């Protein structure tokens, strides 16, 4: 007993050291966001002191330089709308192609599964051109593109879940006089809730952090947070490290808040998504 306890303590200590090491990159960025920009590259691992501390100066200049709040609004708008649209339409489609058995629905299912393994670079150029021609290169149009590109994984995950719902439930409500849309929205969709949460979380993580797709479609006019940060680097010959640190902190804060509030769902969703994917 004594031996295992000693062992537990040493394991706990190892984990504690590792956890601190894991958090330190974020902490180092936070620390540097309060330092003058000329001190950051020289002494990134020192606490700010009397000479290096500049208060919130980096934050105010960074927010002004990349127009952080409009980038935040853009990220939020695109993420919320895209994920809502993805969850709504792909759950409907998954129900349809699972319940209606035909050659066409079978083909669709395999097309969706196939799309999951295709890397973005394969369609990067042609998709951008197609979207330009159809005037989808704006914050509204990009939602449709996200639906199209996100439908593979989402339809696949919803379909797997729909297969496990007994048909009798839907048959019963439809005999009672519901038409299919009523049956879907009143009965099926509430049953799909757990998988809908998983699908939503996986898509939030993707869309919120996505860089290339919005950059190619709308990046020059409307910037999301990742694009604004990339442009902060690219646009100013010698980069303002102070503003950069402050903007990195502001980019991380919403994610950490989201993570700590939905932690249980996020971890469950990731496990479920991994097993399915």
């Amino acid at each position, binding site marked *: 007993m004594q031996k295992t306890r000693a062992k537990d303590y040493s394991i706990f200590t190892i984990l504690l050291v590792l956890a601190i090491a894991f958090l330190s990159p974020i902490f180092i960025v936070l620390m540097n966001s309060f330092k003058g920009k000329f001190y950051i590259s020289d002494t990134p691992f020192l606490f700010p002191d009397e000479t290096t501390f500049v208060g919130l100066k980096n934050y105010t200049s960074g927010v002004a330089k990349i127009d952080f709040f409009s980038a935040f609004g853009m990220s939020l708008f695109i993420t919320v709308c895209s994920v809502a649209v993805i969850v709504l339409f792909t759950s*409907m*489609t998954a129900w349809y192609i699972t319940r209606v058995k035909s050659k066409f629905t079978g083909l669709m299912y395999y097309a969706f599964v196939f799309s999951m393994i295709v890397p973005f670079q394969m369609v990067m150029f042609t998709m951008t051109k197609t979207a330009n021609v159809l005037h989808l290169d704006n914050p509204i149009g990009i939602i449709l593109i996200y639906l199209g590109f996100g439908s593979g994984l989402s339809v696949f995950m919803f379909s797997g879940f729909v297969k496990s719902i007994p048909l009798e439930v839907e048959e019963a409500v439809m005999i009672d006089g519901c038409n299919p849309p009523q049956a879907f929205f009143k009965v099926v969709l509430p049953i799909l809730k757990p998988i809908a949460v998983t699908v939503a979380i996986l898509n939030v993580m993707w869309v919120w952090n996505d860089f290339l797709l919005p950059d190619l479609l709308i990046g020059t006019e409307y910037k999301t947070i990742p694009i604004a940060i990339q442009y902060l680097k690219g646009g100013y010959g010698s980069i303002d490290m102070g503003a950069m640190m402050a903007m990195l902190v502001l980019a991380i804060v919403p994610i950490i808040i989201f993570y700590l509030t939905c932690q249980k769902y996020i971890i469950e969703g990731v496990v479920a998504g991994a097993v399915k994917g």
Partner: protein
Amino acid sequence: MEKSIKKYFALFALPTIIAFGIAFVIPFLLGIYLSFTEFTTVNDAKWIGFGNYIKAFSNQEFLNALGFTVKFTVLSVLTINVFAFILAMLLTRKLKGTNVFRTIFFMPNLIGGIVLGYIWQLIFNGILYKFGVTLTSDATYGFWGLIILMNWQLIGYMMIIYVAGIQNVPKDIVEAARIDGASRSKILRNVTIPLVMPSITICLFLTLSNSFKLFDQNLALTAGAPSKQTSMLALDIYNTFYGKTGWEGVGQAKAVVFFALVALIALVQLVITRRKEVEN
């Protein structure tokens, strides 16, 4: 019932099909066609057969990117999975605070690739500054930088999947092995690892495809510097499309090759998984 649902095709299936067609099916087919043509816009495409593919494979930058990507992928898959598995083993013992540890280790995964790249650029340059060099003065630094970044990002994710797998191992089997006098390493090798094989397969696949397709982190950390030596495949394709006029067709051919490689990895993985399932 099937018949009455079928009538609602336009409501249930059409919106997704249209979006899927615009975002994926048309661009995919068009992409394959364009890889055999010379073009600057989609309308002026001229059929040239395999010319783009020949040009792609005689392009030193592409071959470098391929080599760099393969080297990076092998090493990151190994390191991430070994560390994630060890962490998962430690975190499935009944210790205090395991939930807090899991939360912390998983967190980097939610931060986007661009932000991750710049966080680590600061840290690496801060360390290398003491030796009078920078992250981009030698490709070796960029390589190891990407390995460390990738480990930081993905260890927690894979750990979560391994934890789920290890928790599903029936305790009585492990107990029985222990009573029979099996050593710890024997239990690990002959009981635990075979039983968490499904998790191992998933984690190998996820780390493999994530490492192989890496883009954002690569762009933010080194952007390929010095002189494109740390460019991975995805970044090389991007630079071919948007950095070299007249090379669009070659870019598309590179993209098709890239897709074929990713598909091959997925297929091999699927075959292996199936075989494992039969054994179980």
